[in-house]
């Protein structure tokens, strides 16, 4: 009986860690998109590839497009269709001035926040090793 109870607790804990991780990734996605566009315009698939390789923010690909559309509605991004020489026209996104401002502000908050949290987490991570 006790085993079952312990077993259930274990599953729930793992479950909630997974959920927490999903929420964390979603929370960071907006910043990661703005940061990816810092260097210049990108189209959706290009942006996804950067996010996959650079940020470890594995996501359902389809969620990125509604998010881009909201960032555009909020005036943080501009979008334009560009005819490609070969193949299909592509919808490129670029940061607007207020998008650049927002990206910098978010990056500063993130860096302050993560530096402090890292200090707090050091003992925990040593323990693990």
């Amino acid at each position, binding site marked *: 009986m006790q085993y079952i109870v312990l077993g259930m607790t274990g599953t729930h804990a793992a479950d909630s860690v997974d959920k927490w991780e999903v*929420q964390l990734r*979603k929370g960071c996605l907006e910043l990661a998109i703005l940061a990816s566009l810092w260097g210049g315009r990108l189209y*959706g*698939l290009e942006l996804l590839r950067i996010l996959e390789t650079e940020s470890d923010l594995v996501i*359902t*690909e*389809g*969620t990125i*497009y*509604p*998010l881009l*559309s*909201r960032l555009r*509605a*909020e005036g943080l991004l501009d979008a334009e269709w560009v005819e490609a020489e070969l*193949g*299909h*026209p*592509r*919808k490129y996104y670029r940061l607007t001035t207020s998008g650049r401002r927002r990206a910098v502000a978010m990056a500063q908050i993130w860096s302050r926040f993560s530096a402090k949290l890292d200090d707090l987490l050091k003992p925990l991570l040593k323990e693990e090793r």
Partner: protein
Amino acid sequence: MTATNIKIDAYLRQVRRGLRALPGAEVTDILNELRIHITERAQSSGRPAEDAVDSALESLGNPEQIAALYVTEDLVSKAQSSRAPWTILRTLFHWSTLSILGFGVFMICLIGYSIGVCFFLAAVMKPIHPQGVGLWYQSAESGHFSLHLGGFAPHTGQERELLGWWLVPVGCSLGGGTILLTTHFALWSLGWLRRSRKKSLP
């Protein structure tokens, strides 16, 4: 090639069905972008055409959820950036067609805005019809009483007007207050809707 096109079309039809709340030009734009994403991703995978399209569609995710996310993001950001009661009500109306909770929020806000407008109207009409407009109090023999805001009804002489010219500042501030409160409630509810939509996605 035809088989893959049929699959892509079927997927996009499902997305389109979920996007009814958005303007036509926006829908075309969204569907074009998704179609190009699917084709390009499939072509670059180096797999046989049909497999490649299947995998592109799978990694793109559930079409209904993508459409719902578009609608929520779009409507919520429009309502939040304009804050105009009319835009907010239109957004809530769309939400009310999607869920019972949305319908409840829409009704509460509709009533809230209507009450706000009534206060304002009373304040504006008071100088025009000083004798007819007011906050009227009437007590009946049975111990019941009635209180009503407005005017133009034939008066029996038993009613008392409670506010007099105070109706103008009181009406304006209560009207403004009710409208602001309703707007806050609407935006808070829409924020909640956006968060809950995001949570439901994998």
